[in-house]
């Protein structure tokens, strides 16, 4: 298991080298979140984080996932700082015996990171005039109920 909270970009390829390569791994799943621009107006996203609590909260979520799905490997990387449109925000990777375990664990990680990892996103428009904090959705909190 590995958890990293960092401002630097990551290379999915490099991060996955050797990931989950145990003989009892049958499936690996990765998720990558990117800065999306729906309107053509977005310049970048500022991701604020709570140093210390981020690492602790993510490690706890990842440990829960490892135990619950008997994962053979688990990785979470989350960035902070100013991220341009198209940049990678974060990734998770899970390795397990079967596909269902790897998929479920990755979705569990994402649902919990969304609502329980102390990050906040602010969208900054190209003209610099509009700055909006991304609001948490009720559906994000509801998503936790399935686990």
């Amino acid at each position, binding site marked *: 298991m590995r958890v990293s909270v960092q401002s630097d970009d990551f290379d999915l390829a490099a991060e996955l080298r050797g990931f989950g390569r145990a003989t009892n791994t049958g499936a690996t799943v990765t998720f990558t*979140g990117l800065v999306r621009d729906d309107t053509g107006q977005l310049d970048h996203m500022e991701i*604020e984080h*709570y140093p*210390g*609590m981020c690492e*602790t*909260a993510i490690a706890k979520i990842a440990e829960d996932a490892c135990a619950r799905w008997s994962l053979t490997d688990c990785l979470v990387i*989350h960035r902070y700082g100013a991220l341009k449109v198209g940049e990678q*925000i*974060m990734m998770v990777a899970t390795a397990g015996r079967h596909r269902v375990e790897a998929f479920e664990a990755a979705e569990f990680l*994402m649902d919990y*990171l*969304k*609502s*329980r*990892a*102390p*990050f*906040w*996103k*602010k969208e900054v428009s190209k003209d610099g005039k509009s700055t909006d*904090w*991304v*609001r*948490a959705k009720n559906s*994000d*909190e509801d998503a936790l109920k399935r686990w």
Partner: protein
Amino acid sequence: MITVVYFAWVRERIGVPREEIDTKAATVMDLVSELTARDPRYALAFSDLDSLRVALDQELSYFDAPLAGVGEVAFFPPMTGG
């Protein structure tokens, strides 16, 4: 003395990311009331507690939680990680 930290729009409204507060507040709610009475910036930040979360020593907690033994209180909006 207790360290109080703010994030996202809570930080923006209060104007500082962190401060040391000399308080005898027994619970988080007491601390919120004390700060709210102190300055309109706090009143604005704490006007809707339903849209706020609190962490004690970097663990999510509740507004009625006691502050005894706590070194760091954090106030922030619902998280938007991932």
